[in-house]
């Protein structure tokens, strides 16, 4: 326990722009992420004092509540001074098992936030951390605190200090405008990256979370781009004989895998971003598309209809050794390897419905997590516990939804507009 907490502090200290200091502690309460929402942990996050304090505590409570693993208890006007030990009996009386209290202040123009996490039944402090940043960065401070609390109580990394890139969809079915957009994982700070003058699809983050790759589709053909979110610099991967689509970064960011179509036949290619050399990885007369690297970079899962219908295959990252892994009922597409490497999420079409499901990389232990008229395009939270995807009801516009890997915690994502093709960033450095 002590080691875990110290490692956490070290990780937090390594964060650029945000600094933290802490005292380690032992936990008595725990949250089992594998049980889903059976018993979310009752937790209270009373309003933090000081500059932006109430906003910060609200964002923390919302983050933890949305995970489905915690049940935030409204503290009302009740506050908990961070400088003194909480009144455990009173918080217990309110039904809280965990308490997050804090105080924000401005120190030489910098925002400083002290917070503590308390185990109410044990009457113990589990975390005591201090974050400093610029005042306008208060949301990131709230996300960092959320991640620290989540990790301390679940033993799994958090995923709140992250962003989502997606395709914003506006307008009717026949004049739909597609724009690349990015937002914080909680739906805050949404902004458009493209102007809607061309069809944009399949955005994906690099491991640095500062660069994305995506496909632009025009009547004259398609292009795959790299776009740096910080500088706005956009660069094409070059010309290809036919359509080029479905780009994804390798985990080390040195390569992009994608599909290239020639004379109607789509195959998987990979480009080395350093020397810009492209190499073809599959050469099958069937459709091969939607490649996704394993987190160790050694394998690629992809979609192929070489067996007569779209199914999932795994091959070596250098090409070759392709073997089918999907054998259930229906058509399997859009596979994504989990960040931990232990699961592959996918879209399955069967029984007139579309489903998000997961299986192990060898195809075993397949589980269906969702069903609707149209569920597609899963993407993993960086801790591998939550999947974001798009859901469209018949005749409606697509929306973003989340489901945890137990399949029990299914919620609309906190973005209310038309949206599809989400890709979750890694934890922001």
């Amino acid at each position, binding site marked *: 326990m002590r080691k875990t907490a110290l490692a956490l502090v070290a990780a937090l200290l390594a964060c650029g722009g945000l600094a933290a200091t802490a005292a380690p502690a032992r936990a008595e309460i725990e949250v089992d992420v594998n049980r889903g929402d059976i018993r979310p942990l009752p937790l209270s996050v009373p309003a933090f004092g000081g500059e932006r304090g109430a906003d910060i505590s609200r964002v923390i409570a919302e983050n933890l509540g949305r995970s489905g693993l915690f049940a935030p208890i409204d503290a009302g006007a009740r506050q908990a001074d961070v400088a003194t030990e909480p009144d455990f009996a009173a918080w217990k009386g309110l039904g809280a098992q965990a308490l997050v209290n804090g105080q924000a202040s401005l120190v030489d123009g910098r925002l400083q936030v002290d917070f503590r996490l308390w185990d109410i039944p044990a009457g113990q402090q589990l975390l005591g951390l201090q974050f400093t940043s610029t005042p306008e960065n208060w949301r990131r401070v709230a996300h960092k605190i959320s991640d620290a609390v989540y990790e301390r109580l679940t033993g799994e990394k958090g995923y709140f200090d992250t962003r989502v890139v997606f395709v914003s969809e506006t307008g*009717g*079915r*026949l004049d*739909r405008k*597609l724009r690349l957009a990015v937002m914080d994982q909680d739906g805050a700070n949404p902004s458009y990256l493209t102007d809607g003058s061309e*069809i944009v*699809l*399949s955005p994906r983050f690099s491991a640095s979370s500062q660069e994305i790759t995506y496909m632009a*589709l025009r*009547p*004259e*053909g*398609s292009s795959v781009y790299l776009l740096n979110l910080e500088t706005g610099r956009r660069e094409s991967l070059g010309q290809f004989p*036919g*359509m080029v*689509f*479905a780009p994804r970064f390798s985990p080390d960011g040195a390569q992009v895998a994608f*599909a290239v*179509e020639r*004379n*109607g*036949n*789509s195959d998987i290619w990979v480009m080395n971003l350093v020397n810009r050399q492209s190499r073809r990885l599959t050469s099958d007369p069937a*459709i091969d*598309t*939607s490649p996704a690297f394993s987190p160790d970079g050694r394998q690629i899962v992809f*979609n192929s*209809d070489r067996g007569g*219908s*779209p199914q999932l295959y795994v091959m070596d990252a250098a090409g070759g050794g392709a073997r089918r892994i999907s054998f259930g009922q229906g*058509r399997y*597409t*859009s596979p994504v390897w989990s960040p931990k490497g232990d699961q592959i999420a996918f*879209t399955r*079409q069967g029984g007139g419905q*579309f489903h998000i499901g997961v299986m192990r990389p060898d195809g075993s232990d397949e589980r269906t997590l969702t069903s609707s*008229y*149209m569920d*597609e*395009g899963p993407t993993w939270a960086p801790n591998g516990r939550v999947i974001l995807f798009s859901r469209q009801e*018949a*005749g409606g516009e697509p929306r973003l939804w989340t489901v945890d890997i137990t399949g029990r915690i299914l919620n609309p994502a906190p973005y209310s507009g038309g949206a*599809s*093709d989400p890709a979750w960033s890694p934890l922001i450095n």
Partner: protein
Amino acid sequence: MTPRAVLRWTALLGAAAVLAACQTTPKAGPETPATPEAGAASGTAAEGTGAGAVQPVRRPGPVAGAPIPGSVQDFVINISDRVFFDVDQYEVREDAAAILERQAAWLNRYPAVQVRIEGNADERGTREYNIALGSRRANAVRDQLVALGVSPSRISTVSFGKERPIDPGADDEAFRRNRNARTAIIGGAR
């Protein structure tokens, strides 16, 4: 004719009728201004003012309208620019083959015309797979046109996957219409 072909022909005839209506002066109809003629025939205006003999106004003669041969309209109305596919298939159906024969004959008659074949898929598939499927459809049409004598240098292909439906519906009829390849004229038409 299959029911599908009948539907298609009905749609085509409908389109032709709309175009004819745009370009032809109707002999009679709700749009024809009736009041002045009716007034003249009754002679009310003439009697009221005491003016001289009423001049008869000749009924306007018919004007026939038709697309200019070799124009985009000619191709769309008289030939048909879209062929349709079965679920998850890219083989050219019999009804589509007949249309492609007419497309090829027309393209051979107007050799300056350049076309882009746009492959489309219905929404009952995932995005990237449908891009690939649309490419197959576009290329199947391209191959057929080339086999019928159209130079490959005049034909480009693209796939819009499921992103450019022509029918906003969410039923089988809409899906059927959205599984298509459109031969779009991009240059050289009269």
